[in-house]
Each structure stands twice: as structure tokens, then as C-alpha cells.
């Protein structure tokens, strides 16, 4: 019996003056991979950032394994075992690749060792002394995911991991996420590329104008494809 890992109820969020989220409800159960679909500007990134605490102007309820997340200071969220891979990857120019990898502290055991990470991502080992931002887009995405895997986080939040990447890299990322899923990792994913998401996700949410407009399971995706494509403007 899977339990809810992340529960969002009635989440309203603001970016400065603009009211971006208008009452989002969302659940991610343990071991699931959940994907949020939606057009640009629908509020998907804001929702993810609200969970992690990078967006602070929020009301509503966000609980993780039953414990409230909203009241936590920003630097306490990762301790809960939540790992965030931002849309821009967030690789540090002032750190080497290895330092980028080593930066996020390990709060729980069970994370991959550096050796294991380099086995999974040999190109990162090759470039380990390079400046972080000298890597290609695909390599930076790998690095952004890899450093979270080192921390032992069991709940992964990824914001558009395949954006702007070549099909080969996208495939690689897909394989990694599949391996993680098989390993029991819980994943909340925002993706525009729903062909990519289709092969990974258990459930989908569709966000429109700061609200969840529909939710369905992976098996129902095909029947909804046409409507989705229109709605997402693809």
C-alpha cells in the first residue's frame, strides 16, 4: 500500500505582485513518477519552487511524509530527502565539476558514492577538473542530476530535464530515470515532451493558469493525446 509522500492542498503562490498559483492540489505517492504537463507560463515551475521553498509567498498546505514543509527555512528542506534539479540546471561557474558534484551535503545514507556516479556518468569523470559551466548542456543536466543522487535524496523534483537537449542525451536521461524508478525513487517531473514522460510516468497532472485542470493515469494518456496536443499548443 503506497502512502502519499508529497501532498499539496490549495496552494496559492505569488511572484512579486502577480498571483501565479490559484489553489493547486497535487499528490505524489511513494515510488511513483508523477508528471506535470502544461503550457509555458502555466505555473509549473512556480509550483515546484513552492515545494522546495524557493518561492516564499505561498498559502495553503504542503506536507512531505506528513510533515509540513511551508514553515521550514529554505536550508532545511533538502534535509528531508528532497532533491531539486532546476530548469536552468544551476551549475556553478566558480566550482569545478567535481566540486559541483560534492556540493550538496549528504543528509541521509544510501546516496551513490562518487565512484558509482562516475560509473553511471563516465563523461563527468573525464571532465571532473573542468570549470562547471564549461560542460555542454547535456553534460550539465547529467551533473545536476548526479549531484542530487549523491545526497541520498529519495524524492526527486526535476524541472524540464530534457529541454534543449539532443535526442541521444534525452534517451540517456530517460534510461537513468527509469533505473531510479525501478529502484524505488519517487519523482515529480515537469515536462513539455510528453513522449518522454509517457514512458516514465505513472500519473499525470495538467496545469492551466495556475490550477490543476485534469489528472489521469498513464494508461489513459493515449486516449487524451489529441486534446492534450491542442491544449498544449504542440
Amino acid at each position: 500500500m503506497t502512502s502519499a509522500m508529497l501532498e499539496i492542498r490549495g496552494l496559492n503562490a505569488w511572484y512579486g505582485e502577480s498571483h501565479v498559483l490559484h489553489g493547486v492540489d497535487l499528490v505524489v505517492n511513494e515510488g511513483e513518477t508523477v508528471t506535470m504537463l502544461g503550457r509555458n507560463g502555466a505555473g509549473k515551475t512556480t509550483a515546484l519552487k513552492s515545494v522546495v521553498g524557493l518561492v516564499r509567498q505561498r498559502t495553503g498546505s504542503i506536507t512531505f511524509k506528513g510533515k509540513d514543509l511551508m514553515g521550514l527555512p529554505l536550508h532545511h528542506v533538502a534535509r528531508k530527502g528532497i532533491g531539486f534539479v532546476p530548469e536552468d540546471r544551476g551549475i556553478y561557474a566558480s566550482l569545478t565539476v567535481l566540486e559541483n558534484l560534492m556540493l550538496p551535503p549528504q543528509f541521509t545514507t544510501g546516496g551513490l558514492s562518487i565512484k558509482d556516479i562516475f560509473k553511471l556518468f563516465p563523461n563527468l569523470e573525464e571532465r571532473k577538473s573542468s570549470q562547471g559551466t564549461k560542460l555542454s548542456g547535456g553534460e550539465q543536466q547529467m551533473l545536476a542530476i548526479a549531484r542530487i543522487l549523491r545526497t541520498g535524496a529519495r524524492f526527486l523534483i526535476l524541472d524540464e530535464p530534457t529541454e534543449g537537449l539532443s535526442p541521444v542525451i534525452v534517451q540517456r536521461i530517460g534510461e537513468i530515470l527509469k533505473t531510479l524508478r525501478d529502484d524505488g525513487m519517487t519523482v515529480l517531473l515537469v515536462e513539455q515532451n510528453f513522449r518522454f514522460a509517457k514512458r516514465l510516468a505513472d500519473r499525470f497532472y495538467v496545469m492551466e493558469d495556475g490550477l490543476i485542470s485534469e489528472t489521469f493515469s498513464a494508461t489513459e494518456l493515449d486516449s487524451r493525446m489529441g486534446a492534450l496536443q491542442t491544449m498544449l499548443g504542440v
Partner: protein
Amino acid sequence: MDSFLGISYPALFGQLMIGLINGSFYALLSLGLAVIFGMLHVVNFAHGAQYMLGAFVAWFLLNKLDIGYWPALLIAPVTVAIFGALIERFLLSRLRGKDPIYGLLLTFGLAMTLEGTFQYLYGSSGRTYGVPSALTGGLNLGFMYLPIYRGWVIVASLIVCVATWCLIEKTKVGMYLRAATEKSLQTQSFGINVPLLITLTYAVGAGLAAFAGVLAAPIYQVGALMGQNIIIVVFAIVVIGGMGSIFGAVATAYLLGLVEAITKIYYPQGSSIAVFVVMAVVLMIRPAGLFGKE
């Protein structure tokens, strides 16, 4: 021939030595300022006052508690660092995220308050602080006479600058610092306690200033206004070096100490304005500073 361009070698090297000594103080102070500016984006106007505090703590330790120079080299910076941590935690932290001008103004007000208080309590004139017995006297090097304490100042400041550089570039904490300087929020989202890092950074910066103050005590007199005169020169040095660069600040500091000394040899009236003239020139040619990144 034992002179160069009309100046005898002992006088020449003696003057260059003074240049290196001043450069050493400039370097320690620029380092503290650059470290604080890098992390907090605050121009710590109170830096001169913290330098003065360091010297006063050393003086106080010696004259009231009979504690000598060597313990003071540790106690004074730690004391002032704690004071700095309190300043950051309770005053400066309220300005985080605001325009850096507010931080500059706040620390300016703090400097006024601190210097005014000490001036009120101890007057404007300086008090002497003796050179520690182990470092008195000098060495005759042939081409010049080297007072041992002066040599010690140069060595001590080099050690501290290099040690600080190692701390920032080679340690885990230094890595956290560099990451937090580049992307504060994201670093926090990884679980790193950036607010604490910020407080510590300010404390370390203040401690560095205080360390310079203890080093300065036997050379210059310990006075309420000793920070005021030196801090403006240090600001100019940091502008020349490029405000974002720690290495730039330190390198420029030693360099300018020497420039000042050379000016003093050949054009004495110009020595106090040499740094500012260099600053004007650098700004015209390279507004970002010699090592600046913007």
C-alpha cells in the same frame, strides 16, 4: 656604486620596506573587505573601526589584564569577530536582499558610533603599545637595516593572506562560500545554511581587520581615529583591484604599498595621494579594476 638614482641603497630599501609594511596592512584590510563584499555585497565601512578595535583590545589586554602580544594576536581577532557576528546577525541581516547602499550606510553609521565612542572614552591622541621583546631589534643585511618587528609584520600578513586563500579555494567551507557567493538561494536549497555562512564571513572579515590592528599597535599608536585614515586608502585599493576579486585586492595592496613608497622617495609630497591618482588612472583605462570581472 651604492646608490640608485641619487638615493643611497639603505635609504632606498628602507623606504621600500616601509612600502611593503604598509602594503601588508593594506593587504590584510583589503582581504577582509573583499571577502565581506564578495559574500554580502556590503562595503564594510566599519572595517577601519574594527581594525581600531583590534588594536584597542590588544592594548587593553596588555595594560589592564597583563596579557601580552602573542595571546592578543589570537584573542583580539576572536573578540572582534564575535562582535562582528553580532552586528551581522542583528543589524546587517535585516538589509539582506536590499540595495547594497543600505549596508554601506549602516556600516558607516556603525563606524561613526564606534569611533565616536572610543574618542569620547579615550580621547583622540594615541597610546603606545610596546614591541614584544622577542621581536625587538633589527638585522643588518648589508644593503639595509631590517627592524625585526617590521619583517614579522610582512611575514605574518603574507601567511594570513595565503591561509585565507587556501581556506576559500581548498576547503569544503570555502567551497560552500564560493557557491553561496555565486548563487545564494540555490545553495540554500541544497541544505547549506547560507545565513550562518554569511554571519561567519562577516565575522572573519572583522577578525582579519582586528588582526591587522594588533599587528599595527606597536608601529602606529593605538588611537580612536587610526582606522579612519587607513580605510579610505584601502577602499581606493579595492576599487583599483576590482571589488569582486580577493586575489586582486591583496595583489593590488602590496603593489600600491610599493608605489606609495617609491613616490615618497622621489616626490614626497605626492605619496599620500599616489593611491588616489592611480585609482583615477585605472578608472579611466579599465573601469572594472585591474582584476575585476565586470
